[in-house]
């Protein structure tokens, strides 16, 4: 279909005010937080489920790719229109539709910003647990599509553990309800497979989220180490003792320095590593548990322990952690972040090897990670204008993925496969595994129009 005709039709479907089609807009929507870039043919910002349904039906009838997009913070190219087509930007659908506190549920539109929702809930004394570091800007729709994690998923699980139902627009524009406020609806757990499907199976226009009362007590500790290995060993020892804190977050010296320079939160810039340990739950027994954890830290040669005395001190520590990517981003023009995940017991040796990979390719690597989950975030720093450096970055990223797989882990813990890691899929899945996933894709999206070119490699390895 001619681009102008397409734009004309879309204007008719959703209104002139909800369609963007200037060159400037194409440039604004050609990227996300990854290195991938590709322009959409048209951008629509629907304001209702009905409009999303109409656009999807139109795309289906004319075999045009569609891609749902929220804040565009995706780290794996998931929100880039690599095959062109229509970018359906859901940021105008940002209402909280139903604060059903009695049933411990909220119903929201996909464009609601995660932190905005959490702030509203906090006023009522309730929490929505998932807390991706980017929660200030990311949307619930994007969090669900990527199955985002965050520090607290060590104890509370990832996004898909907290999204219980969605309103879903199918490939032909039909709108269905999947899951809901009640648990255990009969049938296949379609919610399970929709979470983390990166917009390749349908577009959600509403989500039912689980909320919970705020914990009675929280204790946040900042543990400072002279060696990254000792920090890693502490993590393994805590879990090995059968203690599962709410968070076990770690960052290395390069990250600490960048954070301190950017935010002045009081991290010691000469430390090799810091570990942020948070406990939450009932106050009873928490002091004893804290002592046990601090003993483990001491056995692993912790240099200094700072226990946050109040909410302000706690906020400061978390501001440092959540701002880490942004702070590191100031060091070089670009960074590429991997999110390979290993069994948490393999963390110290994996980290040592990541450092070696950085040396081998002569690239600075800053490390921030969800240590309790074994989820690494090596940030490889570079300048994309330097083509030689860029090639080394991609080679190093692939090697880190392979390393995680060799350690018994996986290539992505929370950022998704998107385009960036699609070649890594064959490191962990056999042709049969991928074929089984493709059947699911075919059942939801027989014409392959939802976010084509993502997640599943299109050509299988030679048999």
């Amino acid at each position, binding site marked *: 279909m001619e681009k102008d005709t397409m734009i004309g039709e879309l204007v008719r479907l959703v209104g002139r005010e909800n369609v963007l089609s200037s060159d400037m807009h194409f440039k604004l929507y050609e990227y996300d937080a990854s290195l991938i870039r590709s322009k959409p043919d048209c951008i629509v910002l629907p304001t209702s489920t009905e409009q999303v349904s109409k656009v999807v039906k139109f795309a289906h009838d004319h075999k045009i790719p569609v891609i749902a997009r929220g804040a565009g913070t995706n780290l794996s190219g998931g929100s880039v229109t690599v095959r062109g087509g229509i970018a359906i930007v859901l940021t105008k659908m940002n209402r909280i539709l139903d604060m059903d506190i009695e049933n411990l549920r909220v119903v929201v539109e996909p464009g609601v910003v995660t932190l905005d929702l959490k702030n509203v809930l906090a006023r009522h004394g309730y929490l929505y647990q998932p807390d991706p570091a980017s929660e200030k800007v990311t949307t619930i729709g994007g969090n669900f599509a990527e199955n985002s994690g965050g520090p607290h998923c060590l104890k509370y699980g*990832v996004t898909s553990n907290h999204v219980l139902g969605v309103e879903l627009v199918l490939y032909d524009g039909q709108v269905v*309800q999947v899951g809901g406020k009640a648990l*255990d609806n009969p*049938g296949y757990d379609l919610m399970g497979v929709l979470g983390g499907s990166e917009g390749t199976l349908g577009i959600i226009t509403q989500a039912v989220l689980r909320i919970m009362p705020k914990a009675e007590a929280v204790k946040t500790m900042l543990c400072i180490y002279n060696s990254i290995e000792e920090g890693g060993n502490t993590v393994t020892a805590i879990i090995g003792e059968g203690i599962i804190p709410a968070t076990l977050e770690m960052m290395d010296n390069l990250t600490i320095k960048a954070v301190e320079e950017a935010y002045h939160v009081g991290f010691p810039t000469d430390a090799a590593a810091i570990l942020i340990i948070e406990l939450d739950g009932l106050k009873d027994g928490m002091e004893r548990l804290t002592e046990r954890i601090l003993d483990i830290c001491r056995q692993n040669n912790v240099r200094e322990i700072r226990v946050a005395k109040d909410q302000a001190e706690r906020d400061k520590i978390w501001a440092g952690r959540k701002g880490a990517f942004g702070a590191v981003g100031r060091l070089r023009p670009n960074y590429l972040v991997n999110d390979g995940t290993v069994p948490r017991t393999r963390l110290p040796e994996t980290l040592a090897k990541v450092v070696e990979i950085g040396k081998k390719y002569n690239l600075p690597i800053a490390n921030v990670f969800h240590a309790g989950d074994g989820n690494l975030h090596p940030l490889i720093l570079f300048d994309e204008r330097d083509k030689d450096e860029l090639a080394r970055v991609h080679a190093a990223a692939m090697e880190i993925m392979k390393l995680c797989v060799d350690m018994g882990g996986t290539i992505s813990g929370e950022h998704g496969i998107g385009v960036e890691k699609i070649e890594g899929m064959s490191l962990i899945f056999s042709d049969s595994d991928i074929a089984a*996933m493709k*059947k699911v894709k075919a059942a939801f999206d027989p014409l392959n129009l939802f976010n084509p070119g993502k997640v599943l490699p299109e050509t299988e390895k030679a048999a």
Partner: protein
Amino acid sequence: MSNSNQWISALKGIIGEPNVIQDPDRLKAYAVDGLAPKAVVIPGSVEEVSRLLAYAYLEKLAVVPRGNGTKMAAGGIPLKVDLVLSMLRINRITEHDIPNLSLSVEAGITLAEVQKKLVATGKGSFLPLDPPYSEQATIGGIIATNSSGPRRYLYSSARDLLLGLKAVSPNGDVVAFGGKTVKNVSGYDMTKLMIGSWGALGVITEITTKLLPLPEASATLLASFGDLAKAGSLTRKILHSVLLPSAMELMDGKAADRLGEKARYLVAFSLEGVGEAVERQVAEIGELAKREGAVDTKVLKGEDDRTFWIRVRDFALASVGARLIAPLPVILRSNVVISKLPEILGRYETMARDAGIGCALIGHAGNGILTSYILDYGAAKMGPVVDLIGKFTDEAAKHEGNLIVESSPRDLKERVSVWGRPRSDDVVMRRLKETVDPGGILNPGRFVGGV
């Protein structure tokens, strides 16, 4: 299709003659809703499961996967049963990574055996699932039917616990999803899709799950009430409090009676965790219960604490004193929004009484799951029970829920919808089944959208 003698000898060629049951008398024990299979096959490896399914796929044989058979009265009436595929010989613990708190086990092992090993290894851990019949139920069966119990209030259900899963697809492909990391977004989350899929998308052969450290202490608090509204008010207050019981069950007098407790309504709390927290919660919930108007409260510890929950879990088998009551044939399961559970329990009680049907009701008050056990089912009661299921379903549907028949004799299944009211996403489920299992060989007819 070749005749059954031909394919049975082919199956013997795959797994060896001793592992194929053909004797009609023995086959009767494997009948599903009265349909006896033509053979039972008992493979000894995943490779054999793969070859069996690949053969069944070609010959379009209907295959019913099975563990210890605790769920055989569940599900829709099968369209056809050619083969029962017993997973009982595939029953190893394949990896217990103690420091990682993860465990991989094959489908045919029982949960009870797994728990025994976990308690005795290292500092002790457990798999926080407490489904019915957990002495007999196999891991494969529990996961395939997403079976759960009272403690899901704190520990959640299989979908939030499993890290990975291996299965054999209907065409015989061996597939593996997820892994042993606690976070994983590589590819589609097929593990969740397989949980509760009733073996209709593939035969689960192995799972990998998170484990939890054993709680330091545990106790049970029982609060009996004369008035349902007061009991409901207590559960509501706990639900919205900072307290964290591992189970919170609300039951009617008939259920309490069968458990040997005297109460018009009973709220049972399981408290587990560090010693200080258990003690405080017992005290605090006890006081709150009295303030809410509880007639009596009681604390169970040690063996009493443990056995109480086994009896709740295995309610359909419950024995009082030395007298073993036969398993109850009709069990219904409703899911509703959490806050309405007490009110709906009251309505169900009235409806059952008006219909003259003995019915014990137990609800997961923290999860909105209400189980109805028909106590006096017999052929004469069928008409009224059919009507009652209709009324129960309507009531659940008013509160964003549904009702499934969890256990039932065939005659009743012929007159009710086992999987409740249709939902708008059935269209996707049907397409999914048709795409994954185009020949319809796995459990045809038994699950939602079964083609």
